[in-house]
C-alpha cells in the first residue's frame, strides 16, 4: 500500500484539489471541491459519514472517476513515496500468514512466499508501532487494534513522503493512539505531508496543523483551533446533504439553507 519510486525522503508534496467533482451513478459525492494541502502539513479532513472523505482519498489515489484536477507538487524531480493506511483491511482470519508475511506481501517486490526481503527492516517498522515481539504472530490472531498498528507499520516501509490516513484511530487502542501521535510527530519533524481523514475532532484539534470540513463541498478550511468552534462543528454535522430525489441542484439549496 505504499508506492515506492526510490530516493531519499526530501519533504512531502503539496496536494492540490481543484474543482474536483465526483458523481457515482446519480449520487453527487464531491461537488466542486477545491483544497490545498501544504507540504509538510498534517491536514485533517473531517465531516459526517457519507460526506465524501474517503472518496476524496480515493480520488487522490487515482481510484475514483473524478472530474477536475488532483495534482501533487513534489519537491525535486521525481514523485516520492506515498503511503496509504486504509480504514480496515478485508482479511480471512484463518489465513496462515504471519505479521511479517503480511508486511512482505505489501512492501517488497520479491514474492512473499520466498520469505521476507532481508534488505527491508520490518523489525524496525514494527518496533515503531510497538509490535516488535509479534512479527511471527499469525496475522489473523491479532486484535483489531494490533492489525491497525500493522497497517501503520506497512506505511513506514519505505520512509514515506506523503501519508494518506483513512480514519486510522477508529480501531486503535489507547497504546495505539499514543503510538500514532508519536508517528504523526515524526512525520511532522521529517516534513512528510499527512492527509488524515478523521472523525475524532478532539484528536484533530490536538494533532492537526490544518483542518478542512468536508460534506460534499468544502465547508471550512483553516487552523483547527479557529475552525473547530462548536457552531461550525454543529453546522458541519447537521447539514443533511442527501435527498431521495438525488437532484444535485435541490440538494445544494437545502444545504445552503441548513448552513
Amino acid at each position, binding site marked *: 500500500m505504499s508506492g515506492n519510486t526510490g530516493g531519499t525522503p526530501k519533504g512531502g508534496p503539496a496536494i492540490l484539489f481543484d474543482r474536483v467533482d465526483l458523481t457515482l451513478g446519480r449520487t453527487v459525492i464531491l461537488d466542486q471541491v477545491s483544497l490545498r494541502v501544504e507540504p509538510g502539513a498534517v491536514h485533517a479532513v473531517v465531516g459526517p459519514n457519507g460526506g465524501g472523505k474517503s472518496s476524496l482519498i480515493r480520488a487522490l489515489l*487515482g481510484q*475514483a472517476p473524478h472530474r477536475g484536477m488532483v495534482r*501533487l*507538487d513534489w519537491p525535486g524531480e521525481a*514523485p516520492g513515496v506515498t503511503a496509504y493506511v486504509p480504514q480496515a483491511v478485508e482479511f480471512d482470519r484463518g489465513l496462515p500468514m504471519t505479521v511479517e508475511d503480511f508486511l512482505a506481501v505489501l512492501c517488497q517486490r520479491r514474492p512473499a512466499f520466498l520469505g521476507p526481503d532481508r534488505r527491508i527492516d520490518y523489525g524496525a517498522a514494527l518496533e515503531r508501532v510497538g509490535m516488535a515481539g509479534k512479527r511471527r504472530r499469525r496475522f489473523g490472531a491479532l486484535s483489531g487494534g494490533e492489525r491497525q498498528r500493522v497497517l501503520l507499520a506497512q506505511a513506514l516501509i519505505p520512509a514515506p513522503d506523503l501519508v494518506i490516513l483513512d480514519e486510522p484511530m477508529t480501531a486503535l487502542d489507547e497504546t495505539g493512539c499514543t503510538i500514532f501521535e508519536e508517528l504523526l510527530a515524526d512525520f511532522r519533524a521529517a516534513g512528510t505531508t499527512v492527509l488524515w481523514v478523521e472523525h475524532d475532532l478532539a484528536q484533530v484539534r490536538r494533532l492537526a496543523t490544518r483542518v478542512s470540513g468536508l460534506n460534499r463541498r468544502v465547508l471550512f478550511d483553516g487552523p483547527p483551533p479557529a475552525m473547530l468552534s462548536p457552531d461550525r462543528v454543529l453546522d458541519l454535522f447537521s447539514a443533511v446533504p442527501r435527498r431521495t430525489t438525488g437532484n444535485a441542484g435541490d440538494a445544494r439549496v437545502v444545504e445552503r439553507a441548513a448552513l
Partner: protein
Amino acid sequence: MHHQIVRRAGAERETAWVLLASAAIIACAVAAVGLRPAPPPEPVAAAHQIDSRTGLTSAEQGLHADLKVAGAEIAALLRETGAAPKPAELAAQALPPFARDTSATARGSHAWTLAEAGHGVAYAGVSAAPELAGSMVLVLDTHGKDHAEPQVWLKRAAEAPPPGLDEKTLAAAGWKQVTATFTAGVTR
C-alpha cells in the same frame, strides 16, 4: 518541482488502445485486400469460337458431350483397324450421337456423314431442326499427336460443312468452334 496529475480511474486509455489496435488490424486487412493483384481477365473467345458452357443450347451441350466421348472411341477404333468407322457402323454400336434413338431425335435428328478432312477424318452432322441444335462437325486429327483433342464445330443452320474442313474454311463459312474455357465462374 515535479507536478504529478492524478488520473481519474477509468478505461479511457485502455479503450483508446483497443480501438487503435482494431483500426490497425482493419487497416492491414484493407491494405492486404486492396493491394492484392486483380485476378487475370477471363480469356476472350475468338470470333470463330463459342463457349461450350454459355453459348450452346441444351441439345447442343448434350451433343457436344457425346461427340467428345465418341471422338475418343473413334480414335481408338482408328488405331485398331486403321480405317475410320462409318456413321452407320457407329450407329449400329449404339454410340451416341450416331445412334438413332429418341435422344438423337430430340436433339435435332442429325444426319451424320463421314468426310475427309485435311489432316484426318471428320464426321459432319446436318441438323434437321437448327432451332433445337445446329449442325455439327467432329474433326479428328489422325496425323498429329495421338491424343490430340477432337474439335467440334457448330453452325446453326441445316447445311453441310464446306469441303476441306480446316479451321480457316470452317470459320470463313460461318462455323464456330466449340471450346471449353476454365474461368472463375467454373464451380465444378
